[in-house]
């Protein structure tokens, strides 16, 4: 991965970006529609990428995206900078809207197995580009770094488990893998992720 990112500069950029988005959310909370447009232009591609990864159909993903920005507009006043970076907050919303969408559609999704098979082989499903990573912030960069140290299959199973909120057996089913294999990959993947993240956070976890 070609990432020669100076951590200090990157953190400063991410912090600026986060403050900017937080300021836009504040404007939206007081009813300023122009702020929504700017926020949309800044974040729609990112959130659409997430929606696509979860629902895997462009029409559905656009419905999810529309729903997501309506939620963001309505709930802008509930955003708390102390709890999460704005982009993370928005990503949580788009994931939950996408999962709701899939639950509503669950009866219709019976033919997805092949898509899942393909996906297991393409690693991350594409790497985020370095500038995207910068704006995603320090936490996302640490996670990306630790994930990239995992075996591709372990990483992929973790990412899919999280994004699509799947249980071990659902994952086994969709990936056509033995249940035991999925369980082992997840356990080992999480274990290694845990070690890696802990060392990055300076071992300063109050355990």
């Amino acid at each position, binding site marked *: 991965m070609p990432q020669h990112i100076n951590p200090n*500069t990157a953190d400063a950029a991410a912090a600026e*970006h986060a403050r900017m988005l937080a300021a836009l959310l504040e404007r939206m909370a007081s009813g300023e529609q122009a702020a929504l447009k700017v926020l949309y232009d800044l974040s729609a591609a990112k959130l659409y*990428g997430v929606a696509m990864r979860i629902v895997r159909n462009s029409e559905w993903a*656009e419905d999810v995206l529309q729903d997501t920005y309506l939620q963001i507009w309505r709930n802008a006043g509930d955003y708390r900078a102390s709890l999460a970076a704005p982009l993370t907050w928005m990503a949580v919303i788009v994931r939950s809207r996408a999962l709701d969408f899939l639950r509503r559609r669950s009866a219709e999704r019976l033919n997805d197995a092949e898509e899942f098979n393909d996906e297991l082989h393409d690693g991350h499903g594409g790497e*985020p580009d370095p500038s995207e990573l910068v704006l995603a*912030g320090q936490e996302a960069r640490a996670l990306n770094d630790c994930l990239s140290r995992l075996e591709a299959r372990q990483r992929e199973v973790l990412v899919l488990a999280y994004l699509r909120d799947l*249980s071990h057996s659902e994952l086994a089913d969709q990936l056509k893998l033995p249940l035991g294999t999925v369980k082992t990959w997840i356990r080992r993947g*999480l274990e290694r992720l845990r070690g890696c993240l802990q060392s990055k956070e300076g071992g300063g976890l109050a355990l």
Partner: protein
Amino acid sequence: MTYTPELIDTLAAAYALGTLKGGARRRFEALARTRADVRGAAQRWQARLASIALLQPGLQPSEQVWKRVHNLVQAEIQLRQLAAQRERMQQPQTRADAEQTSASARLLRWWRGGAIAGVVASVMLLAVALRLNHQLQTQPVVQYVAVLSDDKSAASMLVTFDPKSRQLTLQRVSSFAEGENQSLQLWALPEGRGPQSLGVLPRDRVIKLTAAQDVKAVPLLAVSLEQKGGSPNPNAPTGPVIFKGQVIQRQL
């Protein structure tokens, strides 16, 4: 079962990932209700894993999505206004209502009036962050940014100026599009002197121009709507000024 810190953290990770299901999930949640350390571990993992979504590559949605969002929000605002109107008509205005109305009217005037600064202050941060993508390897620099807004204070164009390369980068952020036989022209409005043209803008969403003069000494930038090819008068806009905004210095 003895819950060592190690075990708690492992369970918290599986809980946040979503793979802890059924009875194990319920037991973990029960434990979290009584123990702050368990809650803390779960929240820490939720925060960590939330960034998984941000690691997915971005993808441009069709332009229809914004139009739909815009229309929905617009409809929602109108409905709310209608409901508020109906309420006002049903009951005589109390003093509190009157105060509230005048406060929101003041806010509106503030926004419509010379309030570009507020938008600038927030939008500015973004422009800087965006420019930074390209500058991660370079030294910290001084950056000049402006948000050009229309007469309703809606942000229409983001401008950044890099004094080293004299490069202006303009990004259109509103849906405004000039007509077939029209052009937009960018002007510097220096203090105590007449406007200076910085160039006629192509139709691209992102525009790069090299400024002939130093933009950093200029307090205001403006965009006028001209006949195709720009203002016939080289020293002033001929058409209406449709966007304007202050230039702000930003030290990185």
